[in-house]
């Protein structure tokens, strides 16, 4: 028996999917005014300002940390410049108890949830206060307190995990959902397709949020897929989908709010495709001048999502020139001070080499560790970071 009920035809009819033209949802114009027939979502002043502060914080953090990388103070960094509204607008529409499973460019969601500058810095410098114990490269943040799953570098692996996590939330009747972020490049991975299918079949309360920023390192979206973006794929899995102007904070907020309702109240997984642009380089190791033009970037610089939100806030008299100046100054100072503090903190203890591999250190590994300590004690000058730690014990 087949579950497909389709119309029968008596001559070959091919369809190419071009009929699935997906509209883009927008509310806010670049001058901070709403489109004519648009209506702003229900967003009070406090929340709007919390969103805005997170956007500015993220932007300043990105600027300062890229500069720090250029000065050789930091090994690596990744910015989210240009995509702040897509990430923070969606994160703000969630319940704080909802799980976030991000790709790596979503520091804005963490900032919105209240990750402190100190916490960011400790991870970036991999010091003894880093929750990840100095094991991962910079920007691989995680916080159990803030329901933000620690980042894993292999792309798209978090997407099916998000479906599984959300299924668990459904079974427990928590009234919560999971959101997972990924780029349009990562959406090519098998894991993405597996995740959508699993979620649709099992009616999982999960929001798949694709940040379509036009590039996967140097590969433009046109070489990533032949279709009209990522959104039409949802049809194949019978999933709800919406495409949103990713630089429009109000549209992102409202679309995610509605998506969350579908997910939590109706157990319908949802795909959101946020259309934006990666204004910065892919990472501090990348040079975009090799694969795209300054003119192309300039077009998108005009669509700055932070400025767009600021103009809207000012039109509502919720924000002023003075407020802006103060926030900028305070943030810049805080970032610099915390960076200095984080840099001075010692590295994680030597034991972190062998802890957390299993719940307990297995005997063979313990033996390897003892040998290592003895070795370091014989050459303390060669291992300045850990010589002190190697003194203790066997």
């Amino acid at each position: 028996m087949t579950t497909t009920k389709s119309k029968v035809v008596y001559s070959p009819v091919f369809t190419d999917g071009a009929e699935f033209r997906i509209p883009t949802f927008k509310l806010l114009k670049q001058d901070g005014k709403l489109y004519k027939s648009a209506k702003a979502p229900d967003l009070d002043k406090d929340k709007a300002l919390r969103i805005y502060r997170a956007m500015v914080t993220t932007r300043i953090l990105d600027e300062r940390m890229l500069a720090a990388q250029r000065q050789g103070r930091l090994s690596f960094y990744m910015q989210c410049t240009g995509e702040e509204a897509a990430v923070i607008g969606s994160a703000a529409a969630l319940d704080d108890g909802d799980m976030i499973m991000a790709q790596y460019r979503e520091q804005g969601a963490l900032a919105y949830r209240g990750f402190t500058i100190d916490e960011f810095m400790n991870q970036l410098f991999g010091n003894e206060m880093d929750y990840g114990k100095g094991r991962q490269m910079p920007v691989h943040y995680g916080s159990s307190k803030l329901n933000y799953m620690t980042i894993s570098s292999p792309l798209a692996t978090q997407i099916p995990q998000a479906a599984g996590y959300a299924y668990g939330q459904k079974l427990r009747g928590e009234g919560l959902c999971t959101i997972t972020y990924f780029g349009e490049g990562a959406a090519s991975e098998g894991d993405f397709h597996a995740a959508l299918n699993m979620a649709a079949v099992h009616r999982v309360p999960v929001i798949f949020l694709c940040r379509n920023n036009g590039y996967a390192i140097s590969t433009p979206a046109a070489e990533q897929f032949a279709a009209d973006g990522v959104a039409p794929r949802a049809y194949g899995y019978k999933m709800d989908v919406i495409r949103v102007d990713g630089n429009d904070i109000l549209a992102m907020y409202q679309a995610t709010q509605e998506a969350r309702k579908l997910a939590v109240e109706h157990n319908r997984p949802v795909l959101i495709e946020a259309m934006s642009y990666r204004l910065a380089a892919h990472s501090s190791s990348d040079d975009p001048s090799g694969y795209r033009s300054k003119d192309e970037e300039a077009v998108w610089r005009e669509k700055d999502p932070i400025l767009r939100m600021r103009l809207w806030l000012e039109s509502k008299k919720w924000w002023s020139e003075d407020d802006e100046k103060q926030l900028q100054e305070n943030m810049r100072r805080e970032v610099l001070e915390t960076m200095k503090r984080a840099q001075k903190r010692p590295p994680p203890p030597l034991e972190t080499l062998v802890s957390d591999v299993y719940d307990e250190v297995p005997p063979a590994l313990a033996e390897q560790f003892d040998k290592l300590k003895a070795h370091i004690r014989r050459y303390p000058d060669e291992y300045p970071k850990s010589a002190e730690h190697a003194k203790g014990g066997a």
Partner: protein
Amino acid sequence: MTKMNMLQAINNALDTAMAEDERVLCFGEDVGVFGGVFRATSNLQQKYGKARCFNTPLVEQGIIGFANGLAAQGSVPVAEIQFADYIFPAFDQIVNESAKFRYRSGNLFNVGGLTIRAPYGGGIAGGLYHSQSPEAYFAHTPGLKIVVPRNPHQAKGLLLGAIHDSNPTLFFEPKRLYRASVGEVPDEDYRLPLGEAEVLKEGTDVTLLGWGAQMEVIEKAVEAAEKDGISCEVIDLRTILPWDVETVANSVFKTGRLVVTHEAPLTGGFAGEIAATIQERCFLYLESPIARVTGMDTPFPLVLEKEHLPNHLKVYEAIRASVEF
């Protein structure tokens, strides 16, 4: 002869192969205009066109599955996996498909033209997802060849050897050496044989065996050991699968001692296979236990990378211990 770093040598090898044979194609993530994130494929698209050198969508299983199909059809694909850590999404295509194409079809079909290139190894502050050495996983799979070069000259010759070999071959490039290792490279086409180790230095007291970036580590350790009056024989294995038992065993018959080193974890690492085989072959000649100097049985760390890596000091200690046993 031209002075090149390892990336230039690899680029030159690809250029040489593509110029000679229209069936050679190279593709992978960011491989096209950009020339790959490490620039190993620079200018190839400009030179040979988009049909033969191109960006793929971001899907490793797709890249290798596609390459398997191409190779089965008679093309000579050289697929790039951006980092060896990201070869695992393609594990099924490599282990179940590439490796078994010929065997399962009774040689009706094969993917012998396939070469998979991937930067691998640590020492670049890459943490657990940009530092792995996955050669042992693949070494457990009959049907594959696994090659690792140690410098630019070897990189060009072995890569051309791999491209022209009639078996699916994994070519792991020690990325720590990409720009660090510079040397004279012949301009013409030359192919180094797969499956043959190279004796880099003769000696009488102990045999040192490694591959890739570990050869530099061995060299430094040997320098120190020779100052102590220990005579070392140094062998670069070059091909992990199938490996050159003969050359290693002959060396151990002479020296009576063997130290093997690799970056991957100890347990299940390829040094274990070597130790077992040499112990079988050379039991009566051994003067001390075969020593393994490897990474620890942990994922690769970031901040404590130096502690984790099997560096020259650890290799030097192993040489001393082996001789003083």
